[in-house]
């Protein structure tokens, strides 16, 4: 495989974008990425989206977006891996460039969630319809089951979970593209409306609209454009049982562990080399568990680490979710994995504004689907 570089990025603001259609959001993000990269064409593109069929009764997004981006007859493919659709879209673009099949590929992601669909029901299609959802469980409910198991097994506290939300809102308040640019207090999180015990409203990422896109290019193209800077050092993906109950442990995400092992090996890095990480905090407990399974903290210590500021922008030994994460930046499902890459791209280019981590050179993005049945991890390195 040959080297691949991220040479451009663009996204819409995340939020309730009632006046924007799914196609317009995607095209806006794609055009920004193309302009940022300074390329005069692309060879192919991927569109990550979880469930446009349920959210807006529209499938066949590859062709739709190619059409409205004005690039037909270029190949365009819709990829789906639930909430990891964006990360998998990026991986497809990476593989296409790394394999030598193409030189310039657009990786995008989009979701339009506020057009009136039953969002809880649509999101639940990422779980096992026959043996989980049939019984009335929701996504917050499944993560709540994990949270309670983590509390039981390791003594993780309600306050430690809340610390994740407080941190991510503080980071998101510095991100102009974030859905929520407001800080929250520990008290507010702990007293917010109960959704699925022990998880409350402010433990949950919001319902969002938005799109994000990046341009992946070969070394030769990157060099020619003077953009040979952000290299994709690793791309790894893993799967696990779809149903949470089929796993031996409710507190370890094996797909995250497996993908992380592969990613570290491919990049020649270890967890302590990672300076910034965008992780899939669809719920506060997810960030806690993932920060352990990525090897940043010992198993069971993720909550304590967050509460002690070990993941914060200000005092962290590893800065987690500098963008505000899904929690504060918003979680337009299919766009999330790409937006994570964009945060790394901005940080590694020194262009993250008020959120900038000094001398950031190595970043990791962890994007997962469902209760962790899909996980895709990328490591980006600034040269």
């Amino acid at each position, binding site marked *: 495989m040959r080297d691949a570089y991220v040479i451009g990025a663009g996204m819409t603001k995340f939020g309730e974008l009632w006046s924007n259609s799914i196609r317009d959001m995607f095209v806006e993000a794609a055009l920004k990425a193309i302009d940022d990269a300074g390329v005069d064409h692309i060879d192919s593109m991927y569109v990550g989206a979880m469930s446009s069929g349920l959210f807006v009764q529209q499938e066949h997004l590859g062709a739709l977006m190619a059409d409205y981006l004005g690039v037909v007859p270029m190949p365009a493919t819709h990829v789906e891996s639930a909430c990891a659709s964006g990360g998998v879209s990026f991986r497809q673009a990476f593989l296409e460039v790394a394999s030598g099949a193409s030189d310039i590929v657009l990786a995008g992601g989009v979701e339009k969630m506020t057009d009136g669909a039953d969002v809880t029901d649509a999101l639940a299609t990422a779980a096992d319809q026959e043996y989980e959802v049939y019984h*009335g469980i*929701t996504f917050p409910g499944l993560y709540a*089951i994990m949270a309670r*198991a983590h509390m039981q097994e390791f003594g993780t506290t309600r306050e430690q979970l809340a610390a994740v939300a407080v941190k991510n809102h503080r980071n998101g308040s510095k991100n102009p593209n974030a859905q929520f640019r407001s800080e929250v207090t520990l008290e507010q999180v702990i007293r917010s409306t*109960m*959704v699925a015990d022990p998880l409350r409203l402010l433990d949950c990422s919001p319902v969002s609209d938005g799109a994000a896109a990046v341009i992946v290019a070969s070394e030769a193209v990157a060099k020619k454009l003077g953009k040979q800077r952000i290299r994709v050092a690793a791309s790894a993906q893993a799967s696990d049982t779809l149903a949470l*109950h089929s796993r031996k442990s*409710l507190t370890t995400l094996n797909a995250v562990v497996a993908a992380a092992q592969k990613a570290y090996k491919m990049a020649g890095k270890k967890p302590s080399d990672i300076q910034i990480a965008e992780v899939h905090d669809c719920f506060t407990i997810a960030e806690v568990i993932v920060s352990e399974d990525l090897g940043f903290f010992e198993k069971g210590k993720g909550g304590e680490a967050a509460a002690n500021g070990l993941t914060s922008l200000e005092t962290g030994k590893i800065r987690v979710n500098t963008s505000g994460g899904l929690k504060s930046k918003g979680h337009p499902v299919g766009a999330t994995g790409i937006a994570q890459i964009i945060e790394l791209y901005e940080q590694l280019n020194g262009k993250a504004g008020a959120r900038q981590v000094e001398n950031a050179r190595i970043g990791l993005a962890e994007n997962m689907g469902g209760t962790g049945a899909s996980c895709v991890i990328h490591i980006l390195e600034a040269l």
Partner: protein
Amino acid sequence: MITARYAREIPQRYRLEASRCAQCATVSFPPRLVCPTCKGRTFSTITLQNEGKLLSYTVVRVGSDKFSKETPFAVGIIELKDGIRITTQIADANLEKLAHGQTVRLVFRKIQEDGKAGILCYGYKAIVV
């Protein structure tokens, strides 16, 4: 739920039918065509024991549209005596008194009503014993 889809799951939902691998004895619920342990492809049908214990749970306060009139209700992951784990509602429970490790038994109950015609869908729920 479309009738055919509902009907083909009756052996699991009504009778807790599972498959036991002829090669390594791993039990799968629902039955699978490939054993997740040894990749074996030959199975016999067994019926799961209906007793188990509660591993973890939640109380759903915000449900999908279909379950919105039922909230709050408890859902947990149960480990049955055969070692099989399932997700199911915990019926008739005092929501404040649920606890890890509680012994539960599966009973036959209505699970949901489907579609505008309100077709009744049945299956198992756990009760604390």
